[in-house]
């Protein structure tokens, strides 16, 4: 286990801390504005565009990028791929923080966040896909919390509680995959109700499946991406196992992502084929669709494959960024670019800088919390007292 030396601990006035301070400060101020002046004072939302980047980025992308949790835990615990074990805790942590931040962002977006429990306890709108999303996300957040808790309990020395929770691992993992399948696909299913507002190339009865598959891609790629960042900034916290398994994780996940991207590409093309939407490809939107499909799905698939084959970790890491951007691009396209495509440009939406500010604020909270947890709790290393655990 690596020792934390005072020499390596950074000064409180590091660049990151400075930026974080500014962002958090601005964020707090924007929060005040949001709750004193209403959504109109901080957003460019309108009656034609009720959902902006808080939904597109914080919800849709956030949930997708936090998918590494279920992907990794199912790979290790259900498929028995023990060599990725060291990637589980970071992935679960990312997932937990990701979903927690999604919940935080939702509190900004909805008109009356104190009523968020209403669909569960007051009146259930079971005909709504959003109900299912809410229910599953809330449950999954709990599941993630429980899955994450052993690390916290190890830090706090709660041995009995920890051993109890660890016994539930398989059950929680299965539950987590079931919940993830449902809510990842349901995020896409949200748009099924508005075929008249979504461009035919992006609207498909298969949207739920597309969103589910891209969540797997996002999960795999985010694990690679975060492992890259963690190694850059937190290598000193990592233990032998972690450092040794790291390359294996990158290669293995890269390989998996390559396959999934290829499959995704295929079902996208099949989706166009079954609806006979080829002629849309020659329009402006069609070109943009091809950019998304070829540049951010086909290309990463090939690059991943190539990187794995030649064991080029650098290429795989670069491709993971590309793939993550692709998922973000797809979610943005579905919810912002191809949505309301029929409206004149005067009615189209572009985010207010304050909306972007809040999103950055939320991401910054996530980074700060991640750093806090990773530098104190046994995420990147195994706690010496619990080495027997697995």
């Amino acid at each position: 286990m690596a020792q934390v030396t005072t020499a390596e601990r950074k000064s409180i006035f590091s660049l990151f801390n400075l930026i974080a301070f500014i962002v958090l400060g601005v964020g707090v101020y924007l929060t005040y504005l949001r709750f004193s002046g209403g959504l109109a004072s901080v957003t460019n939302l309108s009656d034609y565009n009720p959902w902006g980047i808080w939904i597109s980025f914080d919800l849709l992308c956030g949930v997708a990028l936090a998918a590494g949790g279920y992907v990794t835990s199912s790979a290790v615990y259900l498929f028995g791929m023990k060599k990725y074990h060291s990637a589980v805790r970071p992935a679960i942590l990312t997932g937990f923080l990701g979903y927690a931040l999604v919940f935080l962002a939702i509190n900004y977006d909805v008109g009356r966040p104190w009523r968020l429990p209403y669909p569960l306890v007051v009146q259930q709108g079971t005909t709504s896909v959003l109900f299912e999303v809410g229910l599953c996300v809330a449950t999954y957040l709990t599941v993630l919390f429980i899955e994450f808790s052993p690390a916290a309990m190890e830090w706090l020395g709660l041995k009995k509680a920890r051993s109890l929770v660890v016994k539930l691992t398989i059950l929680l993992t299965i539950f987590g995959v079931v919940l993830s399948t449902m809510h990842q696909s349901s995020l896409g299913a949200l748009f099924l109700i508005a075929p008249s507002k979504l461009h035919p190339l992006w609207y498909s009865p298969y949207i739920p499946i597309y969103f589910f598959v891209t969540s797997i891609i996002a999960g795999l790629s985010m694990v690679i991406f975060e492992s890259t960042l963690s190694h850059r900034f937190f290598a000193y916290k990592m233990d032998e196992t972690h450092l040794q398994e790291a390359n294996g994780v990158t290669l293995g996940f890269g390989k998996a992502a390559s396959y999934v991207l290829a499959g995704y590409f295929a079902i996208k093309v099949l989706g166009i084929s079954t609806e006979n939407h080829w002629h849309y490809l020659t329009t402006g939107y069609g070109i943009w669709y091809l950019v998304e499909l070829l540049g951010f799905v086909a290309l990463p698939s090939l690059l991943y494959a190539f990187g794995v084959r030649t064991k080029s970790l650098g290429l795989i890491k670069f491709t993971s960024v590309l793939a993550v951007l692709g998922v973000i691009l797809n979610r943005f396209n579905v919810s912002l670019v191809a949505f309301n495509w029929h409206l004149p440009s005067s009615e189209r939406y572009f985010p207010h800088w304050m909306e972007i500010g809040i999103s950055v604020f939320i991401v910054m909270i996530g980074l700060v919390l991640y750093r806090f947890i990773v530098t104190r709790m046994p995420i990147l290393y195994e706690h010496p007292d619990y080495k027997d655990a697995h």
Partner: protein
Amino acid sequence: MSISRRKFLGWVGAAGLSTTIGKSAAAATNKHFTGYPKSFAILHDTTLCVGCRSCEAACNKVNELPQPDKPFTDLSVLETKRRTTTKAFTVVNKYDNSKGPQSPVFYKKQCNHCLEPACASACFVRAFTKTKTGAVTYDSTVCVGCRYCMIACPFEIPTYEYDQALTPRIRKCTMCYPRVIEGLLPGCVEACPMEALSFGKREDMIKIARERFRKYPDRYVDHIYGEHEMGGTNWLYVSGTPFKELGMREDLGITPAPQLTAGALSSVPMIVGLWPVLLAGIYAVSKRKEKIAQTEQEQALTSALDKKRPAESETEEES
């Protein structure tokens, strides 16, 4: 992971019982809702509308909405196309008449009170109710403000009070539900001098429209907008020029909105039921493969050792 027979039977029994709780997932059926019998509808005849905006004024008065910047007698607002806002549940817009360039066509736009409303289907707290009178009403006491209804509405009607910090509401036409249940007419219907808005049972409104087509075939386009669009609405329109020219979308189809998400939602019980089995199976298989690999490893070890041992035991026995 072993489980006792008793425990297993207990779980299965509980799961079975749990399926008896709850109502039918009406969202996920393919039943066709043709409206509550005797529900009311409004027929808007755009060939009669003269764009006087009396309906807008009446709506404003009945719903106690704030006064607009320009009074309702100001017809210059008709030069721009307007949409419903938090202060205007209904708007009248002016369009060019392709059949007679001198006389423009007017069209009153408001919530269409669909038979199977997209907003009601989309709302995850059931803030919208399709009432027996035909009106789709909104309950602001449970609304969380997620605005999914605005995404869902194909007619782009619901508006949101973005400028309210603590009590933002969705606003839309209510078909004057409180008035209708007392036997009164909706405000706009009562106010229209030309009777461009007719009020009565939905079946009767369709009859009236068809009768008008029969009597004046060259005056009307032979189509009642809202009879089947999005599964049917309780606000019907007839027009002398193609509906497209009035800014009404003719590509919405006849599938009711709830049916669009019924497929995705109906898969939920299947996933909940089958995924755990599938994943548990995968887990079991991978565990079994581990076990087999372990056993094979041990066997390989013992056989390798056995090959060595006979020599050793002989030497041991000898020594």
